[in-house]
């Protein structure tokens, strides 16, 4: 089939040869996996597609698939911007991604065990001690503690990009509270509803099984001596930006969504306050940060946690998912050592590439970073949501000087990476009523349980909606699209 780029919705679609485009090859020919979709979109008029797109967005709003945005005076409910053109990943590419993210999750789990036990990797000089001890997310309270099932990072979100060389690179391993899986399922539903005649032309893997797999994972790490564990999710509350996701997951799993004030500790166990009195809780998927989970041990004046929870955890009477202290391994400086970590614990070569990373706490690398900021992306090691990132090529001379000063004041806090060429993907731009190319990344979701693991066959493709922008986070105005993983 010979394709021509004349379909009305693609009339303004421009290929930028500097980037890998997910839809078009360099010669403007549509890639194999997209051919059916591309031609099917040709059957839509611009106004028809515009109507479907608006309907899909309205459905998100009415369904309450939203996140909270904090203004000075009020909290606003917003939908995660979404467009109906799905991203398609063929089976071969996906197999590599799946193996790669699972490999990283397993290696990170072994790394966490080692960091909080024998610290062999440090003693053998592979990872410097300083790097661990100076991490804001290292919890000395976890030293020597054995989490049930031997798992720390039960849930991992791995951020990947496709570079101009056509290969996937890992940008970040998120193993504290990776968010977004609810949008994966919401996006899929929206696409199925709006484009049912299109979706059934492809043989894509389902994403609806995530809830049951998550529950299986939680139950697999129940405390010793418990037959049928009571699992709950703890949320900071309805005003948290990810509250929709918390309630969605609780509903998917059929477990109770609690807040800190719903729980209390008595005689070494955790209970929730129900209308019929206390009920023991065994496994808690916590979406509350480490330092807020127990005011008796961590942040003394925290209102979100449960006094005494950590002591119950230490006794092995409750499982926390993800384990406290996992954040030490999603520190962006630790990311630098991922190839060595994988090799050390699994004796395997990394399946997925790391982006070359300069660690500012190393003198020679600091020098290089300071001299080449305009060619680099500078990131704080412990921030999330795209905050604190400086893209050198977008900075003015004055801004470069400010970034230099900031780095020199606290080199341990920063890493730098070459500016990666995130692949581009057709994205429907409302104001122009057409598809335009925008940069995308991919977040995958991996579950690790006792003797069990699972990678969701799909993911959250995040889109930088502003032309030329490389930051895709929703908190920075990014959008998302459904991701189809083909069965064969």
């Amino acid at each position, binding site marked *: 089939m010979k394709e021509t780029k004349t379909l009305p919705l693609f009339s303004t679609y421009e290929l930028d040869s500097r980037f890998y485009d997910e839809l078009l090859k360099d010669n403007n020919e549509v890639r194999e996996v997209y051919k059916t979709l591309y031609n099917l979109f040709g059957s839509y008029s611009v106004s028809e597609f515009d109507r479907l797109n608006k309907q899909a967005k309205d459905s998100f709003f009415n369904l*309450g698939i939203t996140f909270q945005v904090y203004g000075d005076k009020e909290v606003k409910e917003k939908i995660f911007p979404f467009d109906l053109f799905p991203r398609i990943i063929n089976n071969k590419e996906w197999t590599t991604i799946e193996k790669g993210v699972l490999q990283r999750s397993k290696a990170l789990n072994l790394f966490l065990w080692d960091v909080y036990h024998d610290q062999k990797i440090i003693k053998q000089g592979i990872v410097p001690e300083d790097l661990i001890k100076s991490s804001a997310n290292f919890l000395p309270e976890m030293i020597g503690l054995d989490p049930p099932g031997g798992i720390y990072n039960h849930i991992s979100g791995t951020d990947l990009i496709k570079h101009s060389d056509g290969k996937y690179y890992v940008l970040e391993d998120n193993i*504290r509270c990776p*968010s977004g899986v609810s949008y994966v399922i919401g996006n899929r539903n929206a696409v199925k509803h709006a484009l049912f005649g299109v979706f059934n032309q492809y043989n894509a893997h389902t994403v609806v099984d995530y809830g049951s797999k998550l529950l299986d994972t939680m139950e697999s790490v129940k405390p010793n001596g418990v037959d049928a564990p009571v699992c709950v999710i703890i949320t*900071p509350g309805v*005003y948290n930006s990810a509250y929709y996701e918390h309630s969605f997951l609780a509903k998917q799993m059929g477990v109770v969504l609690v807040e800190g004030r*719903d729980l209390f500790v008595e005689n070494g166990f955790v209970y929730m306050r129900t209308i019929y009195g206390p009920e023991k809780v065994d496994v808690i998927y916590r979406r*509350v940060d480490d330092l807020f989970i127990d005011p008796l041990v961590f942040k003394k004046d925290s209102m979100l946690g449960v006094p005494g929870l950590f002591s119950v955890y230490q006794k092995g009477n409750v499982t926390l998912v993800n384990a406290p202290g996992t954040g030490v391994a999603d520190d962006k400086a630790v990311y630098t050592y991922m190839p060595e970590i994988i090799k050390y614990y699994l004796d395997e070569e990394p399946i997925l590439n790391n982006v070359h990373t300069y660690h500012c706490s190393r003198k020679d690398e600091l020098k290089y970073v300071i001299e080449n900021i305009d060619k680099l992306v500078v990131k704080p090691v412990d921030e999330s949501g795209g905050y604190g990132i400086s893209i050198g090529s977008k900075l003015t001379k004055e801004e470069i000087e400010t970034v230099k000063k900031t780095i020199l004041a606290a080199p341990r806090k920063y890493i730098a990476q070459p500016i990666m060429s995130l692949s581009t993907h057709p994205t429907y731009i409302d104001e122009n009523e057409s598809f335009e190319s925008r940069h995308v990344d991919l977040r995958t979701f991996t579950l690790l349980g006792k003797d069990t693991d699972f990678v969701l066959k799909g993911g959250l493709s995040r889109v930088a909606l502003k032309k030329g922008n490389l930051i895709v986070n929703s*908190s920075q105005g990014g959008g998302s699209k459904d991701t189809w993983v083909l069965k064969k």
Partner: protein
Amino acid sequence: MLARVANNLFWMGRYIERSEHLARFLNVNYFSSLDAPDELSQSRQFVLRSVMYMSANEIIDADITLEEEAVLFNVGLNLEQPYSIVNTFINAHENARSSRDLISTELFECINRINHSFKGYPIEKFVKSGLYEFTSMVTQSASEVRSKIKGTLLHDEVYAIIMLGVYLERAIQVSRIINSKLSDVAAAKEIYGDVIDGSYQWSTLLKCVSTHDMMRSFYKKTPSRKTTLEFIILNGKCPRSIKSCLYQIYKYICIISKNRQITDDSAAFLIGKMKADFEYKLITDIEDNIEEFIADLIEHLVLIADKLEDNYFNISDAIVKPDVKVATEIKKQTQKQ
């Protein structure tokens, strides 16, 4: 079920019912008054005062002139007024949102969609020409929500808690509407004496509670003071009468309290006692001191609500909006997106 969530569900039920009664009272009073049979009942000031009394529980001095658009805005769409219809529904939505893992997707979607449409209703249109449309929308929406509650939830404890809220609030709102109409009738009597038979006010009262057609069908004659009050308070077959509400409240408290010991100061005991008291009550027992009876009734219903919270919800400070400290902590949570 978590005690906090039970509290949210209870209040969700209450706020949905409250929004419907406020809207219907506003709708019926305003539009009935346009062609009312006497000058007082037609008086804009009289109607606006009655609306403020019912909605905001405010008695406005006779020498204060109320501005119609301001009253309509305050009662309908003013986000700054805790008693406004829009705020009442926002509260129902917030309570649903904080327990959405327990309620059906269909129910939450229904409440969420309605909440957006209420909040987005144009103020200018409402105060100038949209009063009928908006208030009708509210009453229809409340019916729709109740239908989702009945049709998409398991009829278990969760359902029983919501319905307890619905029927308790209905009993309170009907009592308050009776109270308000008794006050209107008294004001008319003061001016016109016995020349006025009050049938207009009794018909309005029945319409405010959506019982006019049922009452006409039951008695087959023009509403009088005695038949109206008898029907609306003591008719066990009328789904909106006080007696019927008490039967429902009793039914649902029995589901909730099946595993609990009933002490003589518990909500379950008080409800049972009140239901038993209504079982053999006659209109002749109460018609001579009806104002006192209604005041006492409201007091008892409020006491039952307090007891329910004490007995089942425990967390009495369930916050609708977080205080500054909690809000700051919530913001700090790193939920990567």
